[in-house]
Structures are given as C-alpha cells and as structure tokens.
C-alpha cells in the first residue's frame, strides 16, 4: 500500500485559520437498516454504537457518522479500511446491507483555529454558531457537496469527493486568508 497517495498529499495553508488536507484516510460506507440489531452487533467489536440522527460516534480512534436514514460513514485508518469493510460485510451477510470501502473516493480536510468557523461560514449555508460538536451535516460548500462535523471545539472536519479536492482546497485557502476575518 506504500504507493497510495491522497489527493493533495497533506497540503496545508495557514491564514487566520489552518486548513489542511488530512492525508490518507480510511472510509467505509455502510448502507443498512440502522435499527437492525445485526448492525449494532457488527459494530460492537469496534466499540462503536450506531449514531442517532445526524450524530457522530467515536471510539478507538475511529468515528461513525450518520449520513442518511440508511447510511453510515465509518472513518478509520487507511490501511485497515479494506479489512474492516470485509469484516463488517461478513457480519452483515444475513441482512440486507451494502458495505463498501470508499477510502479512495473522498478527500478529508481539517479547518482548525479559534476562527475556524469563519472560514466555513463563507462557504456553507449552515448555522455554525449553533452546530453542536460531533454533529454530522451534509451540505454544499460553494459549488460542491461536502459532509462536515465539528470534530473538536476549534476544529471542523470535512470530506468531499476526491476529484474536487483541489477546488475545495482553493475554497478553504481563499476563505482563510488573513484580513478576511469576519468578526
């Protein structure tokens, strides 16, 4: 796996906030009936619980986000993702479910700093002032789809499709330039 390269190889810019591509990230899409006990059972060995509406749960360095009423996104290590996907698929073999490794189709970013949300306010029609920590939102950043959640008090994690990683980094860089602080 040594030849794998994330879309932007960890590109980082620091303005009034720091924007960084997070490098190789494992991601697994799980489509299933979220109330299916088999799903909870499949996740239990990872210490993860099925997130409630729009929530993100986390354990052991992995997180699990609510993407839609029948879809979750597991964020994990890049190298472990194929194995985790296979294990979960096996555990859900008797259920109607689709588990698939999607680590390569997205790029992940972090926006950090005390004014991190002022970067995102310029791009997404979301009320960041009232967005709780660890709540997943799928929305629009300028002209593309993103999923994001406040992964810490002063940090926002964001994923977009790999093909538009350069565009999203452009948005983040421009929006975090010094002098562009809103408040």
């Amino acid at each position, binding site marked *: *796996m040594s*030849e*794998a*390269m*994330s*879309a932007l190889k960890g590109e980082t810019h620091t303005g009034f906030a720091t924007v960084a591509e997070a490098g*190789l990230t494992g991601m697994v*899409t799980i*489509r*299933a009936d979220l109330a299916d006990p088999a799903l909870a059972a499949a996740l239990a060995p990872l210490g993860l619980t099925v997130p409630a509406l729009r929530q993100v749960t986390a354990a052991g360095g992995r997180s699990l986000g609510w993407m839609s009423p*029948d879809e979750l996104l597991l964020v994990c290590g*890049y190298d472990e993702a*194929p194995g985790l996907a296979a294990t979960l698929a096996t555990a859900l073999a008797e259920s*109607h*479910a*689709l588990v*698939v*490794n*999607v*680590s*390569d*189709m*997205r790029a992940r970013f972090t926006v950090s700093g005390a004014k991190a949300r002022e970067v995102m*306010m*310029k*791009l*997404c*029609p*979301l*009320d960041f*002032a*009232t967005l709780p920590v660890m709540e997943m939102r799928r929305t629009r950043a*300028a*002209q*593309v789809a993103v999923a994001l959640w406040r992964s810490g008090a002063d940090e926002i994690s964001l994923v977009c*499709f*790999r*093909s*538009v*990683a*350069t*565009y*999203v980094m*452009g*948005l983040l860089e*421009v*929006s975090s*330039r*010094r*002098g*562009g602080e*809103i*408040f």
Partner: protein
Amino acid sequence: MSTRLAKGGRLLDRSKPLNFTFNGTPLRGFLGDTLASALLGSGKTLLGRSFKYHRPRGLVASGVEEPNVLVNLGRNARLEPDQRATTTELFEGAEAASQNHWPSLEFDIGEINDKISKLFPAGFYYKTFMAPKWAWKHLFEPVIRQAAGLGAAPKEADPDRYEQTYAFCDVLVAGGGVAGLAAALAEAKAGKRVMVMEQTAFWGGRAPVDGGTIDGLAPDEWVRNAIEALEKMENVQLFTRTMVSGLYNHGYVIGYQRVADHTPGDGRPRHRLWRIRAGLVITATGALERPLAFAGNDVPGVMLASAVRDYLVNWAVSPGDRVVIVTNNDDAYRTALAVLDAGLSVPVVIDARDSVTGALPMAVKARGVRVLEGRGVAKVLGRKAVTGVEICAQAGEGGVIETVACDCVAMSGGWSPVVHLFSHVGGKLIWDEAGAMFRPDATRPPIKADGTALARAVGAANGALTLDALCAEAGLAAQVEPEAPLAPVWVMPAGAKEALKFKAFLDYQNDVKVSDVQLAAREGYTSVEHTKRYTTLGMASDQGKLSNINGLAILSDALGQAIPQTGTTTFRPPYTPISFGAVAAEAKGEIFQPLRRTPMHGWHEAKGAHWEPVGLWRRPYCYPRSGESHRDAVNREITNTRTNVGLLDASTLGKIVVKGPDAGRFLDMLYTGMMSTLPVGKCRYGIMCNENGFLMDDGVVVRLSEDSWLCHTTSGGAEHIHAWMEDWLQCEWWDWKVYTANLTEQYAQVAVVGPKARAVLEKLGGMDVSKEALPFMSLAEGTLGGFPARVFRISFSGELSYEIAVPANMGLAFWEALNAAGAEFGAMPYGTEALHVMRAEKGFIMIGDETDGTVIPQDLNLGWAISKKKDDYLGKRAQARVEMARPDRWRLVGLETIDGTVLPDGVYAVAEGHNANGQRNTQGRVTSTYWSPTLKKGIAMGLVVNGPERMGEVLDFPGDGGGVHKVKIVDPCFYDKEGEKANV
C-alpha cells in the same frame, strides 16, 4: 459658492486631513468626509452632466438617493465608474473624475441636446428609430451606443478580493437610526439573536442632525448609549457600512458590506455579501425627502433641504451664503435654523401652504426671516450655478411676483418612507392621505415559509416621520417641536405653463421632466409600469428614489384618478447597486468552477495533454508531441493503439454498485436488456431509456456476485444515473430491497488497448489474463503488478482490450507502472479523440453524439439490446407508441463521401421539395464524423430516413459556401465487422 466652515462638523476629524483629486485638481478634506462633502467643502458645485441633455448638475442629496454626482473613482485596475459621491467615504489619495461630458465638465459639446430638448420627448427612441429597418443596426444603434452610458469601464482585472458569508438570526434590523436601535435593544433584551446593519459608517440616522431629545438625552448621546449597550450583548452583532440590499422568499436577506472601500488595498476583502436567513426583518430604513418640481430645480445649488442641513451639521460645509428655502412642510424650517446657526443668511422662505403657523416657522420668523405663504418658485435663475429665484403664487401659472438673489435653494416636498425592503417580496402598502405618502400596511406584510410575517416596519420607514411619533412607537419619551401638516405639492406652481414644466425635473439621472409624464398620459399610458418604461422615469441607477412618488402623483393627476389607484411601480432589490465582485465572490480564477481531476490528472498535465471538458471533468483530448498538431497526435495515437498498445485514463466512467435481493429485478426495469440472468463474473452491454422511451445512457454492466452488480455509465452520466436509480428506488419501488452506491471516484480505471495489451499485463504479472482464463466480456479480480485490481475484458475500440480498476489513491502509481511495463511494447497514452475515432470506426454509438434526447434505441439498430422477454422496463410503454414505429423514422447508418473527404459535423441531407418556411426538405443528418487514419478516408455516422433500408444510395449534403457533399449510405461498422481482433 460652497465652502468649508471654520467650526463644527459632527462627523469630521479635523486633525486628520486627507488629500484627493477631482478631475486632476488636488483638493483636501478630512477624515469623516464623504467625497461629496469634501467636494462641496472645496467649493466644487458643478460636479457632473446629466445623461440625456448634458445639463450641468451638482449635488441634490447627501445620501443613497443622490442621482447626479456619480464619478469615476480610482484608476487603472481599480477604476470604477458610477460611484455615488455622497456614499463614498473620503480616503487618502482618492482620485475622482466627473462623467458624461466632452471635452470637459465646464464645456460640454453634448449640451446641444439641452438646447434642442423639445426634440427629445418621452418615447423619443421608440418614435424615431422605427424606419427604415436597416438603419437601426447600421446607423442608429452605433450612434446611440457611442452616446449612451455613464462612466468608463475598467480594462484590467480587478485586483481586489470579494467574499460571501452565510448568517442566521432571529431578527435582522435594517437601519441603525433611533428607530432601528430601539427595536434592536427590545429584541435583544427579549433574548433574540439580533443582527443590526447600518448602511453608513455612523450610527444614529437623522436624529442627531434634526434635534430634539430622547428619554431626556440629546440624540447623539442616546445613540452612543444604545450602541454601548448593544455591543455588550452576546446575542447582538452590529455592522456599519452594511446595506440590507434585498429581502427574498422565506426570510432570505442579502446584506452588502463595504469592508474596505474606505481603506483600499489594505488586504481585507473589499466587499462581503451576507446571505442571511432571518426570522424577522425589522425595516428601520427611514425616509427620503422629496424634491419639488419647479423649473430649474436641477441647477447646481438646488438641493434637498435635509441635505443642506446635513452638509452644515455633519461636515461643516456651507452649500451657499444665501440659502432660499422652498417648502410645503414645517420640517424644512430646521434647515433655515441650521443655516442661520452657521452664520449664513436665509433671504426668504417660500412656503406653498396658504397659512403657516407651526412652531418651527415661528422660530424662523422670530429670527427675522421673511416667510412667504402660498408662494412657489416659478423658476431658478442661473445655469451652472444658482443666482436667484423668481417667486410666484403657488396657485397660479408662474407669473413672477419678485426675484430674490441667492446661491443655494433648499427644497422640501415632504418625505417618503423607505418601503423598499418591506415591498420586495410582496408586502403591501397603503396611501396615507395626511402624510401624502405610501407606508407599509402592517396587516399585509411579506410572509415566511410558515405563513407568518417576515417584515415589520418601524420609525420613519413605517410613516412615523417625526421624532415624537417614532419614539412613541418604540416606547421612548421624546421632546421635539410639533409639526403642522404639510400640503401636497406635486407641481410648482400648480398651474405651471408648458415652458416651465419642460424644465421641471422629476428624474434627474434620466432627465425625465413633468412634461414627459404628462405627455405619456396624453398618449394613452395609463399604467404606472408602462409609463415608467416609456419615459424611463425611475429606471436609472438610483431607481427613482427621488422621483417615483412625484412622478406617479403627476400621472394620477393627468389621468384624473387618486394616487393609490395609480399605485407604485414594483420595488426590486438591490436597494442601491451592489458590486459584481461581491456577487461573484470566490468564484473566479482557479476556483471559478469545480474542475474534476482524475488521480492521473497531474501526469497528463505534465505530458502536455490538450484537454477536453467532459462535464466538469477535464480529460486528455490527445497528447501532442513537439511539432505535432492535435490532428497528427490523434492519428499517431490511433495507429499505435491499433498496431501496438494504447493506454487510456478511463477513471471518469461512472461506476455504480447495485446490491440486494431485488437488485436483479431492479436492473431489469432500468435497462432495456436482461441483467438478472447475467452470470457472476460476466459483462453485458446495457442501455437505459427514460419514460419517454428515449435513450439516456449506456455502459457495461458486470455481475460481481449473486446479489450485486456494477453498472458502468458514461463519464458525464454517473451522478445523473445514480440519482435516477435512487429516484425509482425511493419514490416508486420503495419496498424493493436494493442499495446503491456511486463508487465512480473510488477507482482509477485504465483501458489497456491493442494487439499487445495482453503482453503488457503479463509483464506486470500477478493475474492470468489469457483468453481462456479471462474471455471477452468477463471479469477477474486479483493483484496485478502488486496493485489490487479488477480486470474487465471489454472493448470500445474493436481491439483486444482490458479495463483495469485500482483504488484511486494508487491510480497514478498504477498508470506509471503500466507506462513503464508497456514501454518495450510501444505503449503510448491516447486521449478522448482517439477513443472517439476508434469507436466510430467500429460503428459504436456515443451518447450525446448519436443521441440527442429524441432517439430511441430502435433508431440506432440496438434492438438486439432490448429484451423481448420482459413485460416492462422504463421506456417500454413509450416505445409502443405509434410514432415510434413509423417507417420513416431517422435511423442510424454509416456515411462515406464519394471523394473520401471528411464530412462537416452536423450537416443535413436534403430531400425533394420545400417546407412551409421555404426551406429545403431534409432526410438525414450527420451525428459523428472523423478522419480515419486506419482506413485513410473520412468516415461518418448519421441518422437518415429509413436509412438501413437504403444501403448504397447517394445523398446530397450541402456544406458551407454552396458546395454539396455527395455521400453514400453504408454499414456503420467500418472496421473488423466480424470482431476477430477483440476476441483473441
């Protein structure tokens, strides 16, 4: 002559002088000045020329309503035309120039238009340029274009940056005057999230200039306290230099923040557009004073009474030594007092009312000023500057009673609440007879998504024009001189003769006069909207802030109907113009739009790929080498692929996984063919139609396991087809157990194509790719050259071909490994044009070339891909319509020119006879046409009436320049019809 006074100026910081230029002349102002106050303070009163008649013009107003003084500001890349001097804050080094004159502001050739102004009445353009027909394009339009337009556009790219910001609040207060601040305090104390936006750089609105007390405090002090209190509250955000530009549906509001107009080049974004969702918008936008319509009311030196006292009080600028006041209300007497307080003189107050008894007039009289009752201005004397006024009886037709010398006229026709925001999305207005004004009807406000009120007007914007009225509304105690009622005055004098009405301006910026509106009424324009467009009243960049009410009152009078019966024109955002930069914001340069890049994008770029846009993707069209034309490169890539091996980045192909117990049944509905019977590990070409029966997408479907399929779509179609699948699964067959996932970007995909393709893969090693292990139209999974890979034996070129998918993050490494392994076999990358030519040589259709949204699969001889066994699939019912079985449908054929040349794209074959428009009848058209380096001749595909039954016929395809292409109908498969090359 205007001048700066030695003392005063509540907004000035005299310790900070600022240098600026006007038409190249160095001038000086102070921090706190607007460009307008600084110009006036520097003795400049002639500041522009009017649009149509090139009449000399000066400042009329002191704020956003100013129609006349629009300047070119800045130079080179920072040149910006039409900047309103009254809302431009002065900054060090500002360069301003007047507009719309030649050769100079003082001497303007265009002034001839004024001398012959009777030749340019309302509707002049409509009436004059009707005939002859040719003249519009060749004579009139070029001449008018030369003369039209204000200001000059910059020729260089804008160096500044702009941005947008989303925001959410419970209450947005538009306007930071007393009414707005009082409302903000009340809402904030109730715990609401409040945003307050004030368009100027200062809080307080008119009250600090107009006087009185609020809760026992001078207005300035009350405002200071209010701002201090609001600043301390965490639930309040305060913005100056931010105009609420428009209200839109469901509480969407646009705010326009001029972040750095007054500090150019300081590294901050110049403008920021706020995209706000508000639970309630409180419009505290004040009121605008109306001019009076008398002859010569546009001569430089004639100003709104409120503007005269703004210049005096805010900026210590005297617009003139001898200021004549002309009014129909008490408020204008405040200007008389301000003039007297500044040590200047008021020769006379001309009041149109028959009896003047109010407290303010009495106070003016008490200071020895002559107040004339029942009088009006017949005419202003002077051309480039006011020299005096001729006074007449307001009730008469303009006979001069006396002439008074003066250098400034302060006029007031009453006030109009700023109802724009309230009206933008359907808030209704009522006519207030006593105030002679339209004001918001609180019972019919604009509404939000839940049907409740979106906006509430307060203060002057609600018709509470006096300090005591607006304070009473806000629950504050005020003390201020009481005002006697005004008397509506729409024309001065009431019976003004034609000659006077020809010089009585309503819309200064567009040069619309009282006579124009009356002419429009005489010519049959009864709707205010039509009159607006016919006369251009209110259509200039000030959108009629000064002229609309006067204009529609005059129209009402001419039509003999009441003002509310005439109604207002529609108020539309923005309230004042906003910059294109703020609208575009970040969307420029590299991030103008999202370009989609495959994992190998950088490699292609480094190899000098010529790009082809495919949706938002960029795909290499070809890889020209030094000295090669694009055509040469394409031919080389094709020949190399057909003789050696070619590599294509096919990552953009859509890849959608469909899984579940009902997945087979679902795909049988989606595709015209049968997918449920496809064996695991096998591939099948599939086509999809919409419910109209028309072809919408195609691609190879692969069965991955017992309950999962992988559907390849066209490059442009992945998102659309995925959404199409989800639509049917969610909205029609929601009880079917099927999940989909669009995995397009999970994989980098490479087509390895050509006779030596197998050798390249064997060199990489790790998988058995022999004919036996991996036959045509099958799938193998394994590790190829160390990469986890899915290998599909499919071909879009007619050659031995493998398409290999690897994880996208390994795409570049895999591509480089293939290029290295292929070197000894002559492997070269090829682009989309080579792909297109090779598929055309094989007669394969391309969605978007052979299809255009009106083509059914049967038209393309794809009947073989339609299952006859199925009861239903999407599009099947439509394909059973009589129209779809017509024998004369246009159907796919190959086309070959008799002389071997390449047919132009999109040309039509003509048939006998002419249609109803006198055009030749047609019987076919070209859908794809190329030079085939393989066959050394032009090849094409096209749709021809009943084409497949007409093999060998020769058709005429007229081309450009009168030539006709003789074209033979042939089989669309030009190359290896038996398919031997792919099946090795």
